[in-house]
């Protein structure tokens, strides 16, 4: 990933080993607490999930029967898996471009702003600090079809009110708008930090040479932000593929499966139908997709880098 420390790291030299001493276990003691937690709460569930995806394990107990790849075969036939996978993909396609572009635009605006800079930075990042439930409550209120703010605005402009959450044509857009408001601040912050790292002199000398602000943006700023864009894009795609919280909270008892993402189907199978094995199998589908996306992104951006 495109991550760099501020200080230039010295060339990788092995730790100086005290003469006469064999390499010892001190380092392992340092790493041990984390490694233990990591083994118990990350590695073990990954293996246990893979194992139980081969059985018809139930959260409620009862007989356990070996199914081999039976859960995976059922998954392939289960229309709800493909519908929820499509919903996840659709959300990712709809949400990623505005989240990346708005983050960049906001960073450019806030970076230029002088006296109002603090207000812009506060307004753009603040929603990211709200718990998802607060965000969902606020947006449910704004989307309210009878006395919600959004329909009030639409009617004021002469349009017809919309049943945002309950209408299947707008339900996904409602989730996207709410997500954009809530999480764009993180991308904004990454872009802002990158902009602050661009030396001022680059722009000044280009301005002296007669470059217009547009040319400076296009020829200097944007190319220098390429690595940041790569990072933002990877993180955003992965975050969008994992969507669950806001959909669940916005649509609880309303739109039902029309916006149901894959994680929600995993949740329903695991914790409502108590089918651990089947839910684990579906988890691995998502797992696989995320790893493929992360890998592809990594390849594309490390191949396209010229340094």
């Amino acid at each position, binding site marked *: 990933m495109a991550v760099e420390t501020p200080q230039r790291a010295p060339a990788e030299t092995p730790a100086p080993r005290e003469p006469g001493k064999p390499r010892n*276990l001190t380092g392992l003691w340092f790493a041990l607490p984390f490694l233990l937690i990591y083994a118990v709460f990350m590695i073990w569930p*990954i293996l246990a999930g893979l194992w139980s995806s081969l059985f018809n394990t139930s959260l409620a107990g009862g007989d356990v029967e070996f199914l081999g790849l039976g859960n995976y075969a059922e998954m392939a036939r289960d229309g709800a898996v493909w519908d929820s996978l499509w919903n996840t993909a659709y959300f990712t396609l709809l949400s990623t471009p505005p989240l990346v572009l708005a983050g960049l635009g906001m960073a450019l605006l806030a970076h230029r702003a002088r006296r109002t800079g603090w207000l812009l930075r*506060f307004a753009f990042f603040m929603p990211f*600090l709200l718990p998802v439930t607060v965000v969902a409550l606020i947006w449910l209120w704004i989307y309210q079809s009878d006395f919600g703010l959004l329909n009030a605005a639409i009617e004021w402009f002469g349009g017809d009110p919309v049943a945002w959450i309950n209408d299947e044509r707008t339900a996904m857009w409602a989730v996207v708008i709410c997500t954009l408001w809530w999480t764009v601040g993180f991308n904004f912050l990454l872009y802002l930090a990158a902009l602050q790292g661009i030396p001022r002199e680059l722009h000044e000398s280009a301005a002296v040479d007669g470059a217009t602000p547009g040319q400076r943006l296009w020829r200097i700023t944007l190319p220098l932000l390429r690595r940041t864009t790569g990072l933002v894009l990877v993180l955003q795609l992965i975050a969008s593929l994992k969507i669950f919280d806001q959909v669940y909270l916005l649509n*609880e008892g309303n739109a039902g499966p029309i916006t149901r993402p894959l994680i929600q189907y995993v949740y329903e199978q695991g914790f409502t139908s108590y089918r651990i094995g089947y839910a*684990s199998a579906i*988890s691995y589908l998502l797992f696989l997709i995320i790893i493929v996306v992360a890998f592809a992104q990594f390849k594309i951006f490390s191949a396209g880098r010229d340094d």
Partner: protein
Amino acid sequence: MRTRLPLSLLGLAVALVWLIPLAWAIDTSIKPEGETTRVPVTWIPEVFTLDAYGRVLTAGDVPLWLVNSLIVATGVTVLTLAAASLAAYGFSRLDFPGKNWLFALVLAGIMVPPQALIVPLFHQMQSLGLVDTYWGMILPQLAAPVMVFILKKFFDGIPREYEQAAALDGASRLRMFWSVVLPMSRPVLAAVGVFTFVTAWNNFLWPFIVVSDPDLMTVPVGLGTVQSSYGLRYAEIMASAVLGGLPLVVVYAFLQRHVIRGVGDAGLKG
């Protein structure tokens, strides 16, 4: 110069639009219930009242949820900083058998989506007896490999000469870590700490799954029950939302500069 004025106006306009949802929530929370559903919408309440806050704070569970969130988020942050920085130091500075493949294993974990692990993780929590406990909420959130990665990258950039000077004075490894490396890493520790705290405070899915006891609910989980328990009392719902959301926003307003600089120091600027 010609472009500066329209651009700053545009920035201001976008910022104001971005503040509307929160302003609208606060606005609703200070109206009497009868006025919240009025059409057309009133921005300036005809009657200003803090009744909704009074009822939520005295009759509701919001204060309890705030305390639970504070316990969980503080626990996650302190323990993550301790475990991750020790591990990062070990991986950055010391040589031990199996180090390279162990670090590769940690790196690989960055790609693992925790959301995909909820089912086996819950199953395991059942067998460990950690369902409906604070530890059940805290422990899985400590397995955050990305924090080890960020801290190791930072430690790698600190010249070894500082520790060699301490070694001449007879300092142990733990001493070098504690008195030499950690004090030099304050900005990155602050950035990692702030992000861990915010993430833990706002985590919805995991506490939602592992806790069903209303006395242990955190803010995000507890607020999820508000819509149904308050029925259609919108002023109270919005007052709960404001109370549940405001603590981090207020803290951030004070720490804004450090957070933005910390993101740069943590090397996330690409």
